[in-house]
C-alpha cells in the first residue's frame, strides 16, 4: 500500500468537553462531522484537517495531537526547522535574535528557517512551478488544500505541483550538510514547527514512513509558550549568557513566503493567490469546469490570511502578518557567494530529491464504487430527501437532511434519527421503516 494512501488526522475530540452542540458539524467545509450519542465524531475519510471545527467549538473540545517535546533528546544533533510565522507570534519587544537563542536554550543544536528552502531553489535555478502535468499549476504547500483536492476534486490532481515544500528542501539540505561534516545520519533529528492541524497531520503521515525527511513535529502554540518563558528568564540574567547564536540565514523574499502571495510573488507568469477554504473551494469548482481564465499558477491556502491564520498560531493574524513584514526588511535581499557555492555543492542530491511523490485520489463523495449500484443508491437518497423536513436542523447528528438521506441510503443510519418526523408524524415511522429499512446504528 502506498504510504500516502491514508491520512494521519491530527484533530481529536475530547469526549468530556464535547456537548454535541453541532457548531463544528455545521461549519465543517467537507461535512466530515457527525454527532453520535451526543458527541462529535470526525469521519477520517472526509476530514481535511483544516481546523475550522476547532476554531468554532465554543467548549474547546477539539484539540490537536501533540508529540512530546522531549522526543528531540533522542538525537544527539537536534535541528529545529521553524517557519518565519514563529517570529510573527511575538511582539516587537522580543527580538528575532532572542527568540532564536531561546530555541538553542531549549536544547536544539541547529536552527533553520523552513522558508530558506525557497532560497535554496533560487540558487539551484529551478523553476518553482514546473512539476505538474496540467495548468493551472496548483501549489502543493497547504496540506489541507491538497487533501481537499484528493477527496473532492480528483480530476485536478494532475495540476498539483509536485515540488517539495521549502521546509522539506531545507531538511534535505541540512541533512546533507551535517552528514558531510561527519555527523552520523542516525544521530540527526530534524523537527518541524507546525502552525496548523493540516501540517501536524502531514508530519505524522511522513513520520509513519521509514526514510522520512523529518523526524518529528512541534506545535507552534505550545512552543511559543515555552519560548516566551525562556526569553523572559534570559532577559533578566542576560550577562550570564556565554554563546550567542546568530539568526539563521534567510532572504527578505523568503521570509515573506508564507504570507498570502508569498509563494507566487516571484513567478513571472500569471498567478493568483487565494486564501480561506470557501474561497478556495469556489475557485476549484471553476478550475474543474475550465472556467478559470488564463491563470498559470494558483497559490491556494486553507486559512484566512494564509498561514498566519493557522489554528495553532496564537497571535492575532493581522498583527502576526505585520510583524513578519517588518522583520523581513531586516534580512538581506541576496544570497552571499559562499552560501550559494555551498548549496551548489549539494546540487546533484538536492535536484534528485526535489520532486515529491504523486498524491493519490481519495474519493469521499461517491455513494458506491460501482456506478450502477451508486445510481440505485442515489435514487434512494432523492426519495428519502423528499420525506425529510429539509430544514437542516442537525438534531439527527448529520449536517443536513441531504447527508442523513445519503447515510440512510447507504445503510448507515435510520430514518428514526429524524426528530422532526418523530414529532410530526410519529405513526408513520413503522411504515417508513418498512420502506427504507431500520438500521441499528453501527457506530
Amino acid at each position: 500500500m502506498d504510504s500516502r494512501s491514508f491520512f494521519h488526522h491530527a484533530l481529536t475530540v475530547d469526549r468530556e468537553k464535547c456537548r454535541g452542540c453541532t457548531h463544528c458539524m455545521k461549519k465543517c467545509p467537507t461535512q466530515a462531522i457527525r454527532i453520535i450519542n451526543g458527541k462529535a465524531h470526525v469521519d477520517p475519510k472526509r476530514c481535511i484537517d483544516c481546523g475550522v471545527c476547532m476554531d468554532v467549538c465554543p467548549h474547546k473540545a477539539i484539540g490537536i495531537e501533540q508529540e512530546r517535546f522531549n522526543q528531540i533528546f533522542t538525537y544527539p544533533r537536534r535541528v529545529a526547522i521553524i517557519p518565519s510565522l514563529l517570529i510573527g507570534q511575538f511582539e516587537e519587544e522580543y527580538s528575532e535574535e532572542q527568540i532564536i537563542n531561546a530555541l538553542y536554550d531549549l536544547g536544539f543544536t541547529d536552527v533553520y528557517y523552513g522558508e530558506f528552502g525557497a532560497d535554496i531553489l533560487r540558487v539551484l535555478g529551478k523553476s518553482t512551478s514546473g512539476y505538474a502535468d496540467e495548468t493551472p499549476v496548483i501549489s502543493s504547500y497547504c496540506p489541507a488544500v491538497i487533501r481537499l483536492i484528493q477527496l473532492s476534486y480528483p480530476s485536478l490532481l494532475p495540476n498539483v505541483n509536485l515540488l517539495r515544500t521549502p521546509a522539506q528542501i531545507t531538511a534535505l539540505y541540512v541533512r546533507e550538510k551535517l552528514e558531510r561534516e561527519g555527523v552520523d545520519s542516525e544521530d540527526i533529528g530534524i523537527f518541524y514547527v507546525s502552525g496548523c492541524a493540516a501540517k501536524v497531520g502531514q508530519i505524522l503521515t511522513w513520520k509513519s514512513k521509514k526514510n522520512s525527511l523529518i523526524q518529528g513535529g512541534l506545535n507552534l502554540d505550545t512552543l511559543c509558550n515555552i519560548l516566551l518563558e525562556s526569553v523572559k528568564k534570559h532577559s533578566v540574567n542576560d550577562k550570564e549568557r556565554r554563546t550567542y547564536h546568530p539568526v539563521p540565514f534567510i532572504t527578505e523574499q523568503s521570509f515573506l513566503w508564507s504570507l498570502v502571495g508569498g509563494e507566487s510573488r516571484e513567478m513571472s507568469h500569471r498567478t493568483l493567490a487565494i486564501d480561506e477554504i470557501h474561497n478556495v473551494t469556489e475557485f476549484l469548482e471553476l478550475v474543474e469546469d475550465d472556467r478559470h481564465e488564463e491563470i498559470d499558477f494558483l497559490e491556494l491556502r486553507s486559512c484566512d490570511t494564509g498561514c498566519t491564520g493557522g489554528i495553532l498560531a496564537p497571535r492575532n493574524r493581522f498583527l502576526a502578518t505585520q510583524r513578519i513584514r517588518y522583520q523581513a526588511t531586516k534580512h538581506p535581499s541576496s544570497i552571499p557567494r559562499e552560501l550559494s557555492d555551498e548549496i551548489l555543492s549539494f546540487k546533484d542530491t538536492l535536484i534528485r530529491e526535489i520532486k515529491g511523490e504523486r498524491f493519490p485520489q481519495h474519493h469521499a463523495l461517491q455513494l458506491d464504487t460501482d456506478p450502477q449500484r451508486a445510481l440505485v443508491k442515489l435514487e434512494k437518497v432523492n426519495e428519502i430527501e423528499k420525506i425529510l423536513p429539509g430544514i437542516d436542523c442537525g438534531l439527527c447528528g448529520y449536517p443536513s437532511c441531504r447527508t442523513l438521506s445519503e447515510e440512510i441510503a447507504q445503510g448507515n443510519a435510520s430514518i428514526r434519527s429524524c426528530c422532526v418526523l418523530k414529532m410530526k408524524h410519529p405513526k408513520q415511522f413503522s411504515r417508513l421503516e418498512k420502506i427504507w429499512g431500520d438500521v441499528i446504528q453501527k457506530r
Partner: protein
Amino acid sequence: MHLNYSVKARDFTSAGSVSSAIKKVLKQLNIPPADIKRIIVALYEAEVNIVAHSYGGTIECELSHDRIELTISDEGPGISDLTMAMTEGYSTATEEVREMGFGAGMGLSNIKKNSDVLAIDTAADSPTIIHMTFNLKQGG
C-alpha cells in the same frame, strides 16, 4: 434516474447553478473525472445560452450507469441559421451579455466537441431543443 431543472432568462447571477447541481450528482456516482468534465463543460454552455439568448427553459437529465442524456429546451426565439450559429466565433450576443463575459461564440462548438451524440432541433421563432448523449467509460 431522471432530474429536472428550470432555467430563467437573463438571470446571470444563477447561470451555472444547474451545471453545479448535476456535477455534484455525477461525482456521487463515481463517474470518471474526465467524463464529468466534458459533460459539465457542454451543459454549462447550453445553460448559459438559455440565460443569454432565450426566453427561458428547462434542463432534463437522464442518468443510467453507462450513459448520460441531457435535454436542454427553451421557449424560443430559436436559431434561424444553425450552421452559422455552430461556427466558432459567431455570436449575436448583445452588449449586456458581453458585459457579463459571454459572447465569444464558442458555446455551441464546445458542446459539439464534448458530447458523443448531439441533436439540435430549432428554427426561427420556435423553441430550441438540444439533446446530448454522453457514453461513459466503464469503471471509474
